């Protein structure tokens, strides 16, 4: 239609602007620019800067120079770094497994008909709503060596004789911060799994009842398999959040006692900001990337649509 130069006089001249206006590729690109800029400025730039810093020996107040993998060689010899890796893995694995178990259990309960259902669901969401710093401070108090309400209650019940030193002993402190993390993370798991449960048609359970399935068999053969796609999503996110946790630990223990609760994120912060070694701190943070990447890869394969979800366009 728009043959330039040869179009008869009556044809309106198609300007470049008008033609671009009708070009889907150009429009698509145009609309993506704002989002692209956001991603570049707020995600790609900090990430790139972090990685770059990890390859330098910058300290606060002193420009550093490129030292290649020097920081990483140094960290490989650092037993505290390896302790933080161990702590992070322990923290992530134990907390995620328990969050999954309790969250699934809670979701199954909330999926039943019961009085005050809406209110109970709202209450379950509370830990998720409260700012983490606030709940961390509350836990800090709950775990206080002198005034812990848990110790107080257990003494009143006659179960123990003296206060428990929750945050003062290595393993106590690890268990305590894990418990706080579980408390904080369960709502996300429970509510998301509940949403997944509600997509399962009740007639499937009726059909299974008539087929002769017991409750346990229905859970194992129907509920759980149908829930696996959403479990993969939820647990990937849960693992990512837990692995990179910082706030809870920093408020409650600052990594103590004797670095027993130092996670990679807290150690990175301590070295980079508190200690001023931006390069080394960044290197620790960069060292988290392979772990997080493997979690994402796991989810990438876990999230792929199951074979039974494919095919068929109707419904």
């Amino acid at each position, binding site marked *: 239609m728009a043959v330039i130069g040869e179009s008869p006089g009556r044809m309106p001249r198609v300007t470049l602007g008008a033609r671009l206006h009708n070009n889907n590729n150009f429009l698509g690109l145009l609309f993506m620019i704002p989002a692209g800029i956001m991603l570049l400025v707020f995600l790609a730039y900090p990430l790139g800067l972090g990685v770059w810093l990890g390859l330098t020996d910058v300290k606060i107040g002193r420009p550093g120079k490129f030292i290649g993998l020097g920081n990483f060689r140094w960290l490989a010899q650092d037993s505290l770094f390896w302790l933080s890796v161990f702590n992070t893995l322990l923290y992530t694995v134990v907390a995620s497994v328990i969050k999954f178990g309790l969250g699934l259990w809670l979701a199954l309960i909330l999926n039943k008909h019961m009085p005050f259902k809406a209110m109970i669901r709202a209450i379950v969401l509370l830990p998720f709503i409260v700012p983490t710093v606030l709940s961390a401070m509350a836990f800090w108090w709950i775990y206080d060596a002198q005034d812990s309400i848990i110790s107080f209650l257990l003494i009143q019940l006659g179960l123990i004789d003296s206060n428990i030193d929750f945050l003062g002993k290595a393993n106590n402190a690890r268990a305590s911060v894990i418990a706080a993390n579980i408390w904080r993370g369960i709502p996300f798991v429970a509510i998301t799994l509940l949403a997944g449960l509600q997509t399962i*048609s009740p*007639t*499937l359970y*009726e*059909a*299974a*009842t*008539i*087929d*002769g*399935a017991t409750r346990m*068999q229905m859970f194992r*053969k*129907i509920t759980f*398999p*149908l829930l696996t796609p959403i479990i993969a999503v939820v647990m990937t996110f849960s693992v990512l959040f837990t692995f990179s946790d910082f706030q809870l630990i920093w408020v409650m223990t600052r990594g103590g006692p004797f670095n027993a609760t130092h996670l990679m994120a807290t150690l990175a912060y301590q070295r980079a900001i508190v200690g001023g070694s931006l390069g080394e701190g960044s290197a620790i943070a960069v060292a988290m990337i392979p772990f997080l990447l493997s979690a994402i890869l796991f989810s990438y394969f876990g999230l792929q649509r*199951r*074979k*039974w*979800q*494919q*095919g*068929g366009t*109707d419904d």
Partner: protein
Amino acid sequence: MASVVARNVVKAFGSTEVLHGIDVEIPDKAFVVLVGPSGCGKSTLLRMIAGLEKVTAGEISIGGQVVNNVPPKQRNIAMVFQNYALYPHMKVFENMAFSLRLAKASDEIVQEKVHAAADALNLREYLDRYPRQLSGGQRQRVAIGRAMVRDPQVFLFDEPLSNLDAKLRVQMRTELKELHQRIGGTSIYVTHDQIEALTMGDRIVVMRDGYVEQVGSPLEVYDYPNNIFVASFIGSPAMNLFAGTVTAKDGLSIVLADDGTVLPLAQGHGVSDGRRVVYGIRPEYLALSKEGQGFETEVVVVEPTGADILVIGRTAGQELRASFHDRHDFRPGQRIWLNPRLDTVHLFDQETTRRLELDEADSDLPRFRAV
């Protein structure tokens, strides 16, 4: 195989009673259709027979055994659901084998039974697919196959065809009926579609608002509806119903419609003059006639269906439907005379809505067992 009997069955959800003392007897090997408008309680009754709903009062027995407190899996029944209820994460084979696996049947038995059912339903080539990869009709066949595999005493169908398109529904209707004739088995089939009820059932149970309105063979229910509800619900296009009064005119007994239209009656019906009645005549029993014979109607809309021509007209201030097998050239606005076949005219009492012949001159009508 077994008969199914409901005796004075009541169902209440909280304080709302939805079934008010249902008595139904379903003989062994019969194909019985529960039909009624939505909300009439037919599905609830079916679910009580299945054991998915508790019986509030009364008793349900299967094969002579009261099953009120027997869990569904011990009732030896199988159910086909409206939305098929296939397990989406299992292949067709495993869907059909599920109940056998739960019962810990040996692998040979599972193979044998599933393949037998698949052959009967032409599903052999789909055994390795997931439900999502099947069409609606195929899914419904899988659901039926899943029921067949269990060799149940009773098959329960809960509106199994209503999710299918019209053409497939007609085809599946025939297939289901043929299947029942082949494998037998007491079948209870719930539908809101009266055509489905008429075409499939050995017996029809017409329900409304938690009561049984009539039980009988399809033609009994069609030809001798117990009351105005059954008359208007069964049959499509529906029976024409006119309110009027039985009156003597020129020595003949007629029904005088409320606007003065004269509706002819067979004589000797035994209904006394002055009685307020509803005059019922089915559309196919109205014949085109000469002026002065029968009653007049004004053609409003003509709907040729191919086999018949349906005329929607206006008589006695209300809509009238007449269907003609012969080709006529009707035009909107045209006035025509229609003569009802007198032996097919029904009179219903306006107060009780019951069919009058049943009350007063029922000697030569087949009596239905009070089931």
